[in-house]
């Protein structure tokens, strides 16, 4: 049964069901378009090497999807664009000097384990790009945390590696200026540094109506408010709310990963829970965890709860009866 669903690319969601002139390829191609500013910013700040990383990730993602579906005798769906997005997102979250072999490995893992083993698009529990990144984080922890300064900053002679704004804030108590963070003139994953470029893409998606505003707003809002509480308590030790949402992967994740239709809840209440809890969790990891950045794990962690959230926030349809062989309990199930 699940195979038929996959072939016809049906997104199963709670009612009401409207017929719209939308299809998976159309949505996906719009998302790809929305990611172009972030790609452009990554090339501007980190050079052609950044473009190479992204292209390798996209290529391997497509190839893995194609090979997997061929081997399993399933219809090949690489033209729907979902594998391209996974590849792009994974590439954008890698450090600039990351090895190409690592990028290949991560893309393969993202598509193979993160998506196809679950049954393909629509059945994966975790965001494939983030799962691929988590795998790389565990596989190459040193490469994944070795950063280079952007091209736009003249390199100091003896500085081989640079520290990200989050690492500086966590380990040395220094906070990068917000304007640098907004433009993207800091060390970090190639596609995560430029807030303005991501924002352009995200707002375009919102304008096209493909993003549910609750998710990015809830996620970034929770980060800002929760992080802000600690900033108010001790502004020397803790970064300010804008720093929290501008630094690291927060922006990219909020617009392009939290909003992933497959791995986020379908009910409005569920979406609020998902986004708010994810944002709080990201700040908790940033402030008290061993790692400077918690966005990736916060989303993966909340992904695991999506089926549960969906189940318990399902709206009760008026007149909905008891299940077969069951007496309806008073006061709802």
């Amino acid at each position, binding site marked *: 049964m699940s195979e038929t669903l996959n072939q016809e690319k049906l997104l199963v969601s709670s009612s009401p069901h409207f017929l719209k002139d939308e299809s998976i390829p159309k949505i996906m191609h719009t998302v790809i378009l929305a990611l172009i500013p972030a790609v452009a910013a990554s090339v501007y700040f980190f050079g052609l090497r950044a473009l190479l990383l992204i292209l390798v990730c996209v290529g391997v993602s497509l190839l893995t999807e194609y090979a997997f579906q061929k081997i399993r005798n399933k219809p090949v769906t690489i033209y729907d664009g979902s594998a391209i997005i996974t590849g792009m997102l994974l590439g954008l979250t890698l450090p600039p000097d990351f090895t190409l072999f690592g990028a290949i490995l991560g893309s393969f893992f993202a598509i193979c384990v993160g998506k196809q083993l679950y049954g393909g698009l629509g059945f994966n529990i975790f965001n494939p790009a983030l799962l691929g990144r988590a795998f790389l984080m565990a596989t190459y*922890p*040193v490469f994944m*945390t*070795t950063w280079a300064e952007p091209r736009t900053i003249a390199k100091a002679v*003896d*500085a*081989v*590696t640079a*520290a990200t704004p989050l690492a500086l804030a966590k*380990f040395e108590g220094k906070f990068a200026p917000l304007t640098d963070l907004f433009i993207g003139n800091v060390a970090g994953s190639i596609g995560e540094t430029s807030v303005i470029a991501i924002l352009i893409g995200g707002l375009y998606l919102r304008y096209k109506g493909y993003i549910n505003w609750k998710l990015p707003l809830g996620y970034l809002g929770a980060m800002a408010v929760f992080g802000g509480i600690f900033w108010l308590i001790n502004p020397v030790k803790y970064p300010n709310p804008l720093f929290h949402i501008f630094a690291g992967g927060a922006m990219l994740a909020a617009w392009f990963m939290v909003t992933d239709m497959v791995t986020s809840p379908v009910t409005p209440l569920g979406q609020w829970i998902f986004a708010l809890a994810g944002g709080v969790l990201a700040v908790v990891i940033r402030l008290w965890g*061993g790692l400077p950045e918690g966005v990736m794990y916060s989303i993966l962690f909340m992904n695991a709860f999506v089926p549960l959230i969906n189940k318990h926030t399902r709206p009760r349809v008026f007149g909905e009866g008891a299940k077969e062989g069951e007496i309806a309990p008073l006061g709802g199930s």
Partner: protein
Amino acid sequence: MNNVTKMFLNLVIIGAVSGAILAVVFGYADPLIQANKEKELKEAIFVVLPEAKDYRLHEKTIGKEKFTVYEGVDAGGNPVGVAFKADGGGFQGNIGVMVGLNLDYLRLKGIKILDQVETPGLGNRIGEPAFEGQFKNVEITPKVEYIKNRKPEKPNQIKAITGATISSDAVVKNINNAIAKALANFPKDGWGKGGYAPSGVESSTPTGVRKETHDGGK
């Protein structure tokens, strides 16, 4: 024989036989296990105090804890340095470090990681000579410090392992804590001619008393 008696006898016999076997095995294994521990300890002391040929044991009770210091002595019996164990939490569990200190209490003579369960290939590189070796001749005043991604600038600094700051930090913290304890409980003036009175049995040369006991146990 009724069933209850049978059950009773079953368990009593099995228990008694098992107990007897265990006693024999333990009699054989325990001296060996103790000897292994002793050997490990001795090797660690000799690594952090390279000039030492033997050591003397000193113990002091601080509150409820016992603090043990090993005084390394050369062939002539003259003190060459002090060693002690520094324990504390790392990234995943306890990190135990043997610390060797110069008698003048100004510099470290060396360290060796004894116990650790850090991430293989990452945090557990604290056990590699490249990291341990950095502590040789590091000044301990005001404190041992670590520095990230750069070459140490001051004589009291070492370079943390890239990607394993927490483990490196834990090692340095443990060492500093233990040095503070040693400084407070065994002031350096005490190591002069008379020295502190050794507590317990003095250790002997590697082919010492211990070995004979376990031969006897066989």
